[in-house]
């Protein structure tokens, strides 16, 4: 019986291969789309609820005054607070993009236990005025090591003397969690502020990040912070880090939702294609079905013969798609590395791929198989003759 199913498939090699290939590509695409979503999610999941973020209520790209730091620190329950400012410098060429932030080095490591750096490097970072630390991936990419000098052109903050900003690498950190990017550079706030002030500029702060005391009422703290600056000069928003990450992702145009829709559309298109193919195969085999039944095969057997063809094609395609996903994973991770710190193909994605493959096989084979089982042998034989 299996032989018959298989022979029917290889009787139309091009059609079978194309069908399986389309399933393969679609499953690959679905795995990748979902992996992007789960990767984004992983950042949100891993982010700490104990850290809160304060940003301008206008947008992430509008600065707040430096003076806010002391005032937020006075709110009861706020323990440590630090500034972060997006620097947006360019290393040699804009295509060498990586993120740089001016930070308060004293609080950096209390605030982010995810960031691993040995004690000597920490001390060196604190002691070096133009010191910076860089993530492992970033260091690997540009072959930077402690002691190297990194000249950056300040695209957003030009150096007052017209030249490049000079940073000295004090250490290379590694990241322990999906939410903490290890392709970032962090440098001394003081160097940033003093350099700008020397040129007559007043730096602002992109975000404040603060930690709360254990057991503190986070809701109350958030509303107090917001209320504190409600009357200006710049009103703020305050949210837990996870919320912030979600906002950040949704600023990218609600990508997860979009990807979800694309995935659904791909799947539906594939389903229609497979149904069409299987209907074609079913029509070609009407006469064969008549013969089976005349020979004494039951309706259920006719059903199985047709649905098996669909299941086998889809399963082969699905396995290839899943295999390809796993094979391509390292390459994709490198390709999207500029946007996402990690690329996670979760087990749940693979399980979903298997479920969709099986569903596809059943759904595509259902109509022809049902028709075959319902077909009266007399009509089936007449149809082919």
């Amino acid at each position, binding site marked *: *019986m299996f*032989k*018959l199913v298989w*022979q*029917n498939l290889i*009787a139309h090699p091009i059609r079978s291969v194309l069908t399986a290939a389309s399933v393969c590509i679609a499953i690959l695409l679905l795995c990748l789309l979902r992996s992007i979503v789960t990767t984004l999610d992983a950042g949100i999941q891993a982010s700490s609820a104990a850290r809160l973020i304060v940003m301008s209520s206008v947008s992430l790209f509008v600065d707040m005054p430096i003076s806010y730091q002391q005032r937020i620190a006075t709110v009861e329950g706020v323990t440590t607070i630090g500034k972060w400012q997006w620097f947006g410098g360019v290393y040699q060429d804009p295509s060498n993009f990586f993120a740089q932030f001016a930070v308060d080095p004293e609080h950096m490591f209390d605030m982010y236990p995810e960031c691993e750096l040995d004690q000597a490097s920490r001390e060196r970072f604190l002691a070096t005025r133009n010191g910076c630390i860089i993530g492992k991936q970033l260091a690997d990419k540009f072959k930077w090591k402690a002691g190297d000098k990194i000249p950056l052109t300040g695209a957003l903050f030009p150096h007052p003397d017209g030249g490049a900003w000079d940073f000295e690498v004090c250490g290379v950190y590694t990241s322990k969690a999906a939410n903490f990017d290890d392709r970032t550079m962090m440098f001394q706030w003081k160097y940033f502020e003093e350099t700008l002030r020397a040129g007559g500029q007043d730096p602002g702060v992109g975000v404040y990040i603060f930690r709360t005391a254990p057991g503190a009422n986070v809701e109350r703290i958030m509303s107090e912070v917001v209320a504190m600056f409600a009357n200006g000069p710049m009103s703020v928003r305050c949210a837990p880090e996870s919320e912030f990450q979600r906002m950040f992702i949704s600023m990218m145009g609600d990508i997860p939702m979009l990807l979800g829709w694309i995935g659904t559309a791909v799947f539906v298109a594939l389903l229609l294609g497979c149904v069409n193919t299987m209907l074609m195969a079913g029509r070609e085999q009407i*006469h*064969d079905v008549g*013969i*089976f*039944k*005349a*020979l*004494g*095969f*039951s*309706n*259920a*057997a006719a059903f199985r013969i047709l649905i098996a063809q669909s299941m086998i094609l889809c399963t082969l395609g699905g396995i290839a798609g899943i295999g390809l996903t796993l094979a391509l994973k390292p390459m994709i991770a490198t390709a999207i590395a500029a946007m996402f710190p990690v690329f996670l193909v979760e087990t749940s994605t693979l399980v979903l791929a298997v479920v969709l493959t099986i569903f596809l096989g059943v759904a595509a084979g259902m109509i022809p198989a049902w028709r075959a089982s319902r077909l*009266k*042998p*007399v009509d089936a*034989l007449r149809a*082919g*003759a």
Partner: protein
Amino acid sequence: MTSMIRVRNVTKSYSRGGETLKVLNGLNLDMDEGRFYALMGPSGSGKTTLLNLVGGLDHPDSGELYVAGANLADIDGAELARWRADNVGFVFQGFNLIPVLTARENVELPLTLTGLSRAERRKHSEYALELVGLKDRMDHRPRQLSGGQEQRVAIARAIASDPKVLLADEPTGDLDRKSAEQVLDLLARLNQEFKKTILMVTHDPHAAARAQSIVNLEKGELGRIDHNVPPVAAPVR
């Protein structure tokens, strides 16, 4: 002698576009075990319809139909399919074989419904193909066989599971004289040596002459039955 096939007051009509077409109109017929019958009649007289009813491929509208001891009105669905597998073998006019399977695989197909082991199935199918003189064509696909060879493979398949009744609908209809004779020789031999009850629909008087009885069907009713037709030697052309 017992009746292998007993038809009592069988009616069958088809409705097509609101019109009802009465094909069989209270038909009565008895066919003895181990005899070779030819079923003749003008086109549209209901020969194929009757053959399909006898083979359990379709149900009569009314009447009784006993074939190989079973009342076909009583059985249905999977049970009827099973009955077909055990009791009847079909040979149709053309397109008998599954095109993607080899001759041997085609013959083995009905055997997969029996409890036979793979080795036994193989033995049976080879024996059946040997009987029809095509053992050397075992691994050919239907497309690689001539029409006459295809028909002989179909006969091998029909007898592979050793049914009591063979039903053939114009088995020689598409064949040249020589191939037709081979097929008819084969049917006659199966009847004589293996005591198969055979019902063969044909338009060809030469073919019908090879049978022991000729049943004439006219507008859904039984016409003349000629018995004891002496076996005719293969005419030379």
